[in-house]
């Protein structure tokens, strides 16, 4: 039983990596690494410890190569030289990789070696402690240590580790009770107790006073440097590209046209928009964004021609990239080492979000607006004037977009730049600019209204040519995005349409039309100017939470009920057991029963006269004759070396019952209740352990 619990503990601790790895990659690893060492330890329990450890040292690489590195093995089991090399590399480098990879990490053998090794060690240490020591809680500590390693590693990841922690607590409690006893029936009695402890831990844990921001070990490591060859921000290139609009940049083969996104700029210092992203190598995977709603998939094959810099165009939001080594950031922007050689081809698969009109209408902005440069009052007053009729954050953004599209003019020849001075000049004097100024000023105005905004540089879909879209430098387009709760970053295009928009599959333009209709709807609908308090997405979440709460409540009630039944039935069963057997056993049982009812069951060092003294102190002098008579009978039965008659046993039980009655009469009700419901009632009283400084005395 204890071994099963230890294996379970190690497995669940390995499951603590759930925020680091994907489920289907992690489950088999945690399972194998928890079960195999425990089974092996059980098989080698007769061996000396060094031999058992040596066996584990041999079996671990074999297991890893037969499961994780199976592709590189000889005959599916035996590690080859390349497996060994790969395993060595994994042991040395994976720790660092785990701290720098974007979560969830890919299920690569190299990375999975880390949880495999940790869970294995925890299971091995726990099993050996169970088999070779009498410690109760100690075998659980290695698993808990693994869990404490796993949790910080997954701080950035999705999901919650709270249920896992609850299960761990329950397993530890079960282990403590099982190890404290012995024998299956009483071990079963431990299960409701363990479950109650686990549930209590789950309920109490969220209310513990802890730091708001969990510790993230990733802040301690330096990112592996990604070569940023392109020193020029793509936004600075917009004007230049528009001046020379016929340079072929790249070709996209895709079933549908879409705007191709190149770079995301989220920091504005009053002079230029730059990117604050931390790029990481993920092996071609792109982490999912915050949006969890309806989307359509779009596969593209991009062939680069004249695109300078390391940014790679793709439809938002990319899911996976193949054919080129890329680094990605949280926004899904792709960056690679610029090869300089045109003709490089790569494939991108993208999920294009399609939030419903209701979702957009009721959306509330996510988080703060981002940093603003000083002296933006002019822009703020303009933005407030333009959006004073807005009833929701989304409508506010739409009105801003509408104002820029209608009141200002698109002019390819206008001077480049997007510093505060240039934007002020653009908004208040010339009213003419390229998408560089339109996007930059929209993002700035939105920030003055408290909306989190950023600038995106990309391209219009380009010229269609039988399933391929040729993108020229003139197709460059900058737009802005605003982040909404649950929807992620939604694009807004403040740049006025050009004449040939329809012919050139201007995707953003059609979306603008839709947005304007939506804004009119919002204006027409009677409502307050605040977003509705429970958007549908959240409502779903609330339903799920309520269902979870009901399930937890039911489970808790079942557990509590089971515990009550167990804790109330155990003393009755004990009493019945004590009344069975030969007369000597029944006399002994009567004595044990009286001691238990006096609350002295856990003090086996007391002699009969000391028990009588305590009893008199507890229940007054009238209990003394009963206890004394019972003590004499029990001493005679136990130590006289002679048989004792059944009438003596009857007499002993009479005295015991009498003493118990007097004792319970003298005990305060509250203490009686506590004693009745205490988990101790589940177990047969045993001698308390000597204090740690006392070594085990020699007992038979």
């Amino acid at each position, binding site marked *: 039983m204890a071994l099963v619990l230890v294996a379970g503990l190690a497995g669940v601790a390995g499951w603590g990596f759930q925020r680091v790895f994907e489920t289907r990659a992690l489950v088999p690893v945690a399972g194998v690494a928890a079960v195999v060492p425990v089974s092996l330890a059980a098989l080698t329990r007769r061996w000396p410890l060094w031999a058992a450890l040596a066996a584990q040292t041999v079996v671990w690489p074999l297991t890893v190569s037969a499961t994780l590195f199976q592709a590189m093995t000889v005959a599916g089991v035996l590690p080859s030289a390349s497996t060994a090399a790969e395993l060595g590399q994994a042991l040395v480098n994976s720790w660092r990789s785990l701290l720098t990879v974007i979560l969830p990490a890919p299920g690569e053998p190299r990375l999975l070696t880390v949880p495999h090794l940790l869970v294995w060690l925890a299971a091995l240490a726990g099993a050996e402690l169970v088999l070779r020591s009498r410690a109760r809680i100690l075998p659980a500590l290695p698993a808990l240590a693994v869990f404490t390693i796993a949790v910080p590693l997954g701080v950035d990841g999705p999901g919650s580790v709270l249920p896992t922690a609850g299960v761990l607590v329950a397993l530890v409690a079960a282990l403590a009770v099982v190890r404290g006893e012995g024998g299956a029936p009483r071990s079963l009695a431990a299960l409701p107790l363990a479950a109650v402890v686990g549930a209590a831990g789950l309920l109490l844990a969220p209310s513990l006073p802890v730091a708001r921001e969990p510790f993230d070990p990733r802040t301690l490591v330096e990112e592996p440097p990604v070569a940023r060859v392109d020193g020029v921000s793509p936004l600075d290139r917009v004007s230049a590209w528009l001046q020379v609009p016929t340079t072929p940049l790249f070709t996209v083969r895709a079933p549908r046209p879409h705007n191709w996104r190149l770079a995301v700029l989220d920091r504005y210092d009053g002079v230029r928009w730059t990117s604050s992203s931390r790029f990481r190598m993920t092996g071609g995977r792109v982490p999912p964004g915050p949006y969890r709603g309806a989307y359509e998939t779009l596969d593209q094959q991009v062939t680069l021609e004249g695109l300078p810099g390391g940014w790679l165009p793709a439809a938002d939001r990319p899911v996976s990239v193949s054919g080129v080594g890329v680094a990605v950031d949280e926004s899904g922007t792709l960056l690679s080492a610029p090869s300089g050689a045109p003709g490089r081809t790569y494939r991108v698969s993208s999920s294009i979000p399609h939030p419903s009109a209701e979702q957009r209408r009721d959306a509330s902005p996510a988080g703060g607006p981002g940093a603003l440069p000083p002296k933006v009052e002019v822009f703020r007053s303009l933005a407030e004037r333009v959006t004073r009729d807005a009833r929701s954050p989304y409508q506010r953004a739409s009105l801003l977009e509408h104002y820029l599209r209608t009141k200002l003019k698109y002019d390819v020849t206008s001077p480049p730049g997007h510093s505060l001075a240039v934007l002020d000049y653009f908004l208040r004097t010339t009213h003419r600019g390229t998408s560089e100024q339109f996007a930059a000023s929209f993002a700035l105005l939105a920030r003055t209204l408290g909306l989190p905004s950023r600038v995106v540089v990309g391209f219009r879909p380009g010229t269609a040519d039988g399933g391929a879209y040729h993108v020229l430098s003139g197709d460059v387009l900058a737009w802005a995005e605003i982040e909404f709760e649950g929807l992620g970053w939604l694009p807004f295009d403040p740049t006025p349409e050009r004449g040939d928009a329809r012919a050139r599959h201007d995707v953003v333009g059609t979306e603008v039309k839709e947005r304007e209709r939506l804004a009119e709807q919002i204006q027409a609908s009677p409502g307050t100017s605040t977003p509705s308090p429970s958007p549908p997405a959240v409502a779903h979440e609330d339903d799920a939470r309520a269902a979870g709460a009901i399930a937890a409540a039911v489970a808790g009630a079942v557990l509590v009920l089971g515990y009550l039944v167990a804790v109330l039935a155990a003393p009755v069963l004990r009493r019945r057991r004590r009344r069975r057997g030969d007369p000597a056993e029944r006399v002994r049982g009567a004595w044990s029963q009286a001691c238990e009812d006096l609350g002295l069951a856990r003090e*086996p060092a007391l002699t009969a006269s000391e028990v009588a003294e305590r009893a008199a102190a507890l229940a007054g002098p009238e209990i003394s004759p009963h206890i004394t008579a019972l003590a004499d009978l029990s001493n005679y039965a136990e130590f*006289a070396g002679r048989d004792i008659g059944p009438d003596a046993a009857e007499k002993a039980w009479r005295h015991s019952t009498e003493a118990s009655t007097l004792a319970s009469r003298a005990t305060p009700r509250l203490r009686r209740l506590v004693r009745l419901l205490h988990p101790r009632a589940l177990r047969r009283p045993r*001698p308390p352990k000597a204090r740690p400084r006392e070594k085990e*005395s020699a007992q038979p």
Partner: protein
Amino acid sequence: MAALAGEFRQRFEALAGNVEQVIRGKREAVELALICLFCEGHVLIEDVPGTGKTTLARSLAASIQAELRRVQFTPDLLPSDITGVSIYDQASHRFEFHRGPVFANLVLADEINRASPKTQAALLEVMEERRVTVDGESHEVPRPFMVLATQNPVDMDGTYTLPEAQLDRFLMRVAVGYPDPASEVEVLKGMPTGPRIDHLPLIARAADVAGMIDFAARIHVADSIYDYVVAVVGATRHSPEVRLGASPRASLALVRASKVRAAAAGRHFVIPEDVKALAVPVLAHRLLLTAEAELRDRTATAVVTEILSQTPGPHALTKP
């Protein structure tokens, strides 16, 4: 057996009551000394002067028709002053052995720690062997034979502390202690009129005492009691505060003393109470505490008491 135990109990009570007429309010010390007598063990009375150590020994001797000899230990006392000497007899032209004070039923060795170690060793050898060997000839001491040694724990100048190996030969160490105020008043009142030791009635003859000693040896001891004794004694050897634990001789002494206590209570079998009540006087003086424990003012008595409170009784030991 049970009837005999009742008889033993009566005699024991009578003896204790008899001695208590002279030495008031010290029932416990008297009973422990009597238990030593019926175990054929020796007792070390450690106490300040004037608490009735000598009176206890004399009234005990007076109650059981036994010869009492007293030896006052001094630094210049020689071994032969205790055991006796062979003297050349001019008339018979032979060496004749003149018995020393150790040839008695009760020997009161006053202030045993004032004599030189050599002299102490001579007495302790007799205590263990129950015979004196002079010039290759052994001379048995009479039976019952009991040494009541006293020492003053306060006055340390010019004393030779008894080594542990020799302390081990005493079955018990007993402290008489000052009487409580009521008993002291009794003593003061009784001074002119109370029974003098010379007039104490004789309760048991030498043959009776020998019979009682034999009976006590036959008291039943359950296996779980042996286990309990071994557990308690073993715990003294494992305690981190103890440099030297109790020896197997101590376990043996504890069982013997427990048997006598059981018989004195009119029982024909030993119960854990007997062991627990006697563990401190039987074990405490045999333990050597570590320097740290002594610095913390821990006493051997406290260590043994703690061990007793932590060792599960035989009830618990026999549980499956």
